[in-house]
Structure formats: structure tokens, C-alpha cells
């Protein structure tokens, strides 16, 4: 069974109805689902924090964002749930609904996200051979990646990410490079740029 089929099987979870419009290859599908899980964790934290503070504009913007993510990956029923909360919180309209139902929503999204991560872990493979890179080449690669991140150039960053994932320094530095790669993959460019600058300041390259 491929990733898309496994993903559709998540209908088994209560409150999730998957009608996926994902059409890319397995690897791209995996990337989108990974990004969803990564992002939804932060969004749920933000929603719970906004709820606790009764900050309805912040709640509304965040729940709108997670609705968009859910609908983009095809999780229709959860997307509708988010939409209901968005409407209820809009201009503080019917916040009693938000107070009563946010816990249930957060629990369902979290469970859904955990299931996705569980599926993705079955498909992940770290067996690809990596090529040793020397310091001047690494310095050049990171400088180009820093420029792409600073410019928010998705195309260039994506191409450089592919290069970054293929190389190794065979040293402790690899762990930091993996962290940078993860941030670039999740389009957290400001954080990636900061991590690259930190390496530079530490004199690593």
C-alpha cells in the first residue's frame, strides 16, 4: 500500500474524512504530510494559547490557517470542524462554541497528526549513501543557502536542500546540518538563516 492509500485509511479515526486531492509522487506527498504534522503541532499550541487568553482575533487567524492546511491535504471533515470554529470566533461572534469545542478539535487534529507521523516513519529511509564534502565546498553551499533563505527563494532553497541532504562531513557538524535541512524543508527560512549564521560565527566554516 502506498502513502496516499495509507493516508486515506485514516478515515478510520473518528472525525476525519479524507478526500485527498494530493496528486504528487509518494515522496512529495510524504513531504506535504510531514509539513502538515510539523505545522499543525505549533498551530494547536497557538490556538490553545489564544483560547486561554480569550484572544479571539489571534484564535480566528490561527484556526483559519489550520483549516487551510487540513483542506489542502484533503482532510475534509476536520477542515469543516476548523471552519465552524473560525466562523464562531470571527469578530467574537459565538465564542461559546470555541470554548466548548476547541479541546475536542485539538485532540482530533493531534491524533490525526500522530497517525500521519506513524505512517511516514514506516516509509522513511536513511539508507542513501552520502558524499563526503570538503570545507570550501560546504562553505559555498551554505553561503548560497543563506542567500536563498534571506531572499525567501523557495526554488533555490529547495534545490540547495537536495544538495545538502546528499553530503556529509563525517563529523559532529552533520547533526547541525541536519537541523538546518529540517528547517529549510519546513520553510522556516528565518530560523535556517539564523542557524547558518551561528555556524559562521562559531567559526565552523
Amino acid at each position: 500500500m502506498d502513502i496516499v492509500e495509507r493516508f486515506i485509511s485514516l478515515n478510520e479515526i473518528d472525525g476525519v474524512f479524507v478526500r485527498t486531492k494530493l496528486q504528487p509522487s509518494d515522496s512529495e506527498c510524504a513531504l506535504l504530510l510531514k509539513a502538515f504534522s510539523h505545522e499543525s503541532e505549533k498551530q494547536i499550541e497557538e490556538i490553545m494559547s489564544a483560547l486561554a487568553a480569550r484572544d479571539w482575533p489571534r484564535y480566528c487567524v490561527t484556526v483559519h490557517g489550520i483549516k487551510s492546511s487540513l483542506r489542502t491535504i484533503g482532510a475534509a471533515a476536520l477542515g469543516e470542524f476548523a471552519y465552524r470554529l473560525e466562523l464562531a470566533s470571527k469578530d467574537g461572534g459565538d465564542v461559546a462554541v470555541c470554548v466548548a469545542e476547541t479541546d475536542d478539535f485539538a485532540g482530533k487534529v493531534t491524533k490525526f497528526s500522530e497517525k500521519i507521523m506513524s505512517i511516514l516513519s514506516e516509509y522513511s529511509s536513511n539508507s542513501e549513501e552520502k558524499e563526503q564534502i570538503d570545507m570550501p565546498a560546504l562553505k559555498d553551499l551554505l553561503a548560497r543557502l543563506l542567500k536563498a533563505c534571506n531572499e525567501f527563494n523557495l526554488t533555490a532553497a529547495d534545490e540547495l536542500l537536495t544538495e545538502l541532504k546528499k553530503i556529509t562531513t563525517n563529523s559532529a557538524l552533520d547533526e547541525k546540518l541536519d537541523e538546518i535541512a529540517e528547517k529549510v524543508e519546513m520553510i522556516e527560512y528565518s530560523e535556517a538563516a539564523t542557524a547558518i549564521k551561528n555556524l559562521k560565527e562559531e567559526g565552523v566554516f
Partner: protein
Amino acid sequence: MDQFTGGKKKVLVVDDVAIVLMRTAKTLSGLADVFGARLLAEAIPIIEEQHIDLFILDINLPDGSGMTLLDYIRASERHAKTPVIMLTANASRNNIKTAATKGVTRFIAKPFENKDLLTAFKFCMNIK
């Protein structure tokens, strides 16, 4: 060849949802250099520094509205006539009407299919 960049078209996507940025970049890969911003505050420096050939804008953003950004784009000398696609879950009649009066070229409702985005891209770029 593009007269401004001498190469691929430049597209700026403004959307706070990472997977929308990812999908757009993957869908247009090979056709355009895609820049992405998750906030108005991130988008404005890109608009000032780059010559963008096509904008793809969401409406609801954490620090403001895509409609405000659309006004900003239309008011700029460099991008006043640059095509704009609105890509949003808020595809209400009112939003479509407002966007049309502000000179939006195409309106795509979320969730979108890749082929819809490709068709709109080709239309805006005059690609047959």
C-alpha cells in the same frame, strides 16, 4: 527569455500555510523561480527588491489582508500591471467582486488542484 530576468519567470506566493507554499513551488518547478512569504512584512521587501512577474496571494494573513497587499502592488510603479492570482479559502462573492475591481487576473478557491494553478499560471504568463 524573460526581458527582466533573462531567464525563468519570478513568482511571489504570499500565504501563511507552509504546505500551500510547498505545493505551489513544486507545481511551478521548472517553470518559475518561486519566492514565498508567510507575512505581509516578509512580502514587502521581496516586492521592493525583485522584479516579480506574477503574484499569488492569500487573503487572510496573520498580519493583515492580502487585499491590502494587492493595493500596495497596484500602487507601485514597477508592479502596477503585474498579474495577480488570488488563492484563498475566502472565495465569497464579495471577495471575488472586490478582487476583480482591484485588477486581480484570476481567482482560485482553496483547496485547489495543481492543474488549476498551472492553467492560471499559463494564462497569466501568456503560455499556450
